[in-house]
């Protein structure tokens, strides 16, 4: 479990994250949703220490991560898999080398075992056979999926995904959502997904944190979200005509 307590972050004179507290549970797909620019990515980066907190704490199974020394932080991070919003694949390495990288670094597996693992991960994100391509030769959606394969390569305990299915077609987006949900349940991972895609919310919203202007505005799950009386959340959920019609059908 990961728990954030009263975290705050200011960039310059703009307070981006305001006193947010929340619990992310293992074996659940925990969603952080909200409109563009509300501070989702910032919260994710605060949790893993890529931004420094102004105040508050982030507990990884009880360990206050930001207060650990560098070596202990590194040990926690070896258990983290992270999918960046932009992919962040290593340009100088092929797809296979990218996915193999965490294995090379932290395991003593034989090359054969590593390659088996790489091919298994690539197959799960539907990129089998693309081993030799460089990131520059992949499409935007393929990069996302490749980055997800790298994030799950070394069996993480905590999985952070920043918009895993933005830029994907609806069919592939669902495949990726399902994949994240499956591995979360299979391996008892604490998974945190940043999203602004309502499809994902319906598919995999076990435990949802809605951020509005940097604040914890609403929490709940996918069935509660459609009966919300919260004005901002309502506007977020029912921004599109499609969701409105879905809602009407449901309430008939």
């Amino acid at each position: 479990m990961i728990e954030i307590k009263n975290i705050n972050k200011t960039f310059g004179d703009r307070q981006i994250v305001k006193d947010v507290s929340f619990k992310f549970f293992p074996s659940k797909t925990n969603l952080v949703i909200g409109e563009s620019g509300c501070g989702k990515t910032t919260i994710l980066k605060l949790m893993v220490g890529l931004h420094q907190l102004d105040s508050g704490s982030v507990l990884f199974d009880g360990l206050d991560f930001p207060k650990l020394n560098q070596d202990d932080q590194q040990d926690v991070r070896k258990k983290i898999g992270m999918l960046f919003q932009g992919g962040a694949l290593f340009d100088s390495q092929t797809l296979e080398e990218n996915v193999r990288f965490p294995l090379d670094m932290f395991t003593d597996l034989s090359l054969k075992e590593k390659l088996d693992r790489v091919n298994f991960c690539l197959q799960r994100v539907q990129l089998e056979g693309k081993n030799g391509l460089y990131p520059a030769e992949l499409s935007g959606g393929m990069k996302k999926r490749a980055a997800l394969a790298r994030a799950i390569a070394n069996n993480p305990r905590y999985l952070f995904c920043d918009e895993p299915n933005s830029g994907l077609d609806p069919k592939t987006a669902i495949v990726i959502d399902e994949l994240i949900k499956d591995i979360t349940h299979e391996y008892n991972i604490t998974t945190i997904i940043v999203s602004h895609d309502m499809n994902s919310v319906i598919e995999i919203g076990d435990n949802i944190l809605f951020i509005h202007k940097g604040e914890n505005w609403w929490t709940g799950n996918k069935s509660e979200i459609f009966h919300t009386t919260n004005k901002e959340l309502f506007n977020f959920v029912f921004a599109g005509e499609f969701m409105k019609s879905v809602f009407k059908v449901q309430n008939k």
Partner: protein
Amino acid sequence: MLMMRVFKKPQKWSVYYKQIIFEIDNIGISSLPIVAIISIFMGGIITIQAAFSISNPLLPLYVLGFTARESIILEFSPTIVCLILAGKVGSNIASEIGAMRITEQIDALEIMGINSAGYLIFPKIIAAIIIFPFLIAISMFLGILGGYVMGISAGACSSYQYVYGIQTYFDPNKLYYSFTKVVVFAFIITSISSYFGYNTSGGALEVGKSSTKAVVYSSVLILLFGLILTNIFLNH
């Protein structure tokens, strides 16, 4: 601060070892053509220049070979060639690491629990310290060869005189002095450029700026340390 992280015990030697081999190729071998071309031409120019200046018939012609050797070994190869390498290797390192910074590749390394400074910078510094002396040795050889070819073909001296010249009054300590400088310069170029690349923030524009800064600062430091080292050696 950054240097402390760079020289922390590597997390996995086999991976670092592979990186060093890769960087030796990337930094060193790929610089061979430019080093070769510049050395041959500069060697030739130095010899021709010397031939023009020595119009005094009392001076023996083998002085040409002697002058070419002295200037190439002492200053031209270690300093000028390292300045050229600061331009080529320095901008290359700074833009590579800078691009990794702005596309979050460095963050990705950190998240995996990897000491990104160590993983990215250490192999480059070690590779440069290993390969630069070889590059400079080749440069010295080609420079003297270039002087020979130009000297003969311009009719400034005979083959025998030049070869005799490059062998007279040879002090091996000077080689020691030159190669010490090269190792120091290799360290300056790689560490300064890595520093500016690593601390890039913003977008593609800032990567360009980091790379310019890397070249300017390493060049200035090369000249400064060249001066300091010359003083130290002359006083001993």
